């Protein structure tokens, strides 16, 4: 196995994209993910692959849509307020079933917000900011190693299901360095010769189009999309849990906040409380089934996130009233510390218990 090296999250994502076989990158710079485009501008040139610094984010995502329509592995990367600009194209890409890969390294919002890290795009990523009924696949790394592994996975899943796939990181992960290793791209290549627009010479012409002029066809199209989403949920839902078997309280977080709840759960165990941790790795599909199972014995879920409370709603839906769901949060800025989480959890425990 290759030796670990100290890698910045943004560079890890960029090099993982190269190793996953990304053939073209289109992007527009924005802090805190500019290093992805910076790195690829040289690397893609050296490899003779496609790189365009687009005139805007709108152009970049539509270039990805065009390139991916031809069967090429194509991606863009951006951050919060600029990902907002891409939402229309993502709705199209979902309806067109084009395997777009998009990396969102979240910063603070709403509006222009600022460049420091936040987790305020959960809802935008999971529910979508475009029109109509659609779902992206959304993967949330918590370490630099996972920036690599989940970028690999994003390319694979997007191709396998012909569905736009997002890696939802945050400024903290993008900017930090941590030891990590590039394993070999572990997934098989997906044959796309039955749908890609590669020129109609010698075969029937094809078109990729989201217009459905008849009501019946539109209903059938959406039903097919949602059958696919069910299949994705069945096959690809992924999560991590520690110490949940006997837990009374389970801390839930996503992305880099996972690190803090893992440490907080250990501290709370040390105080004699039965505390576990749970984190969705796929935010969409969301591991609702497992959370619902856990709510049979867990007395309280405490969701910890850097926004005004977004994923907490999905946890509530998952447990469907069977158990309490609480929130510890901050809107943006300094990540909630292990001590703040521990204090927050202790406040939820009625006096005299334990």
């Amino acid at each position: 196995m290759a030796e670990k090296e100290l890698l910045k999250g943004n560079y890890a994502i960029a090099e993982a994209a190269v190793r996953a076989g990304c053939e073209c990158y289109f992007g527009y710079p924005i802090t805190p993910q500019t290093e992805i485009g910076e790195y690829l501008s040289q690397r893609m040139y050296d490899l003779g692959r496609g790189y365009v610094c687009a005139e805007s984010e709108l152009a970049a995502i539509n270039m990805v849509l065009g390139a991916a329509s031809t069967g090429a592995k194509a991606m863009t990367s951006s951050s919060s307020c600029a990902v907002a600009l891409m939402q229309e194209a993502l709705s199209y890409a979902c309806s067109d079933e084009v395997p777009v890969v998009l990396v969102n390294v979240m910063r603070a919002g709403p509006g222009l917000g600022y460049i420091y890290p936040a987790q305020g795009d959960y809802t935008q990523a999971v529910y979508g900011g475009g029109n109509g009924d659609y779902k992206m696949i959304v993967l949330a790394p918590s370490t630099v190693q996972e920036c690599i592994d989940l970028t690999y996975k994003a390319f694979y899943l997007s191709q396998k299901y012909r569905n736009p796939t997002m890696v939802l990181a945050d400024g903290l992960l993008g900017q930090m360095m941590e030891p990590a290793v590039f394993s070999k791209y572990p997934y098989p290549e997906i044959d796309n010769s039955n749908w890609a627009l590669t020129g109609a010479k010698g075969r029937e012409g094809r078109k990729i189009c989201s217009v459905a002029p008849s009501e019946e066809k539109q209903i059938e199209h959406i039903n097919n999309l949602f059958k696919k989403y069910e299949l994705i949920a069945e096959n690809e839902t992924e999560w991590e849990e520690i110490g949940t078997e006997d837990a009374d309280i389970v801390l839930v977080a996503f992305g880099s906040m996972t690190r803090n709840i893992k440490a907080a759960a250990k501290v709370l165990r040390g105080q004699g409380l039965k505390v576990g941790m749970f984190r969705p790795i796929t935010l969409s599909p969301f591991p609702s089934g497992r959370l619902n199972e856990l709510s049979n014995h867990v007395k309280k879920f405490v969701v910890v996130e850097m926004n005004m409370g977004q994923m907490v709603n999905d946890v509530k839906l998952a447990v469907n009233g069977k158990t309490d769901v609480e929130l510890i949060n901050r809107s943006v800025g300094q990540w909630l510390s292990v001590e703040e989480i521990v204090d927050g959890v202790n406040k939820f425990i009625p006096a005299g218990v334990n």
Partner: protein
Amino acid sequence: MEKNYIIAGFGGQGVLFAGKVLANAFMYSGKNVTWYPCYGAEMRGGTVNCEIVVSDEEVSSVHKQDVDCVIALNQLSFDRFITKIKKGGRIICNSSLIEEVRPRNDIEYIFYPMTEKATESGNHKLANMVSLGVLSDIETSLDKNIFERAVDTVLPEERKHLASVNINAWSAGHCNTLLAC
């Protein structure tokens, strides 16, 4: 056991470079480590800092609210971070650019003329590496071999010839007579 360090100074003093060297050194000594910079509108002449967290286990919070040890390369950094140090923590100061005052009595101070020592060692720009020498003298068991490896990793190809002058500067901080200095 988790411990965090902040290195802070002017943009151009090699703050991020020193942080990367230190983080690599910890990695080579078998620890788990993260490096996190302040980022954004920083520029040469402005202030810059980075935070390194070291742990025997998985690193938890990458960017903490308080700090075990600060390396301050200029006065602004001293003023900014002095209040963030944990009780019983430590600040290592470049006394070439920082006034020797002790506003708190619950932390340990080390003043060392890093810019002067760097100049004596061959390059006045390398106060950053002198500071790592001081740090490894008193804080950790990181040795010269590990730093040689770390410097080699962090220096880009076109700067590899500067490895030895960096290590000289490190040695200028790594004097076992420090406590008498």
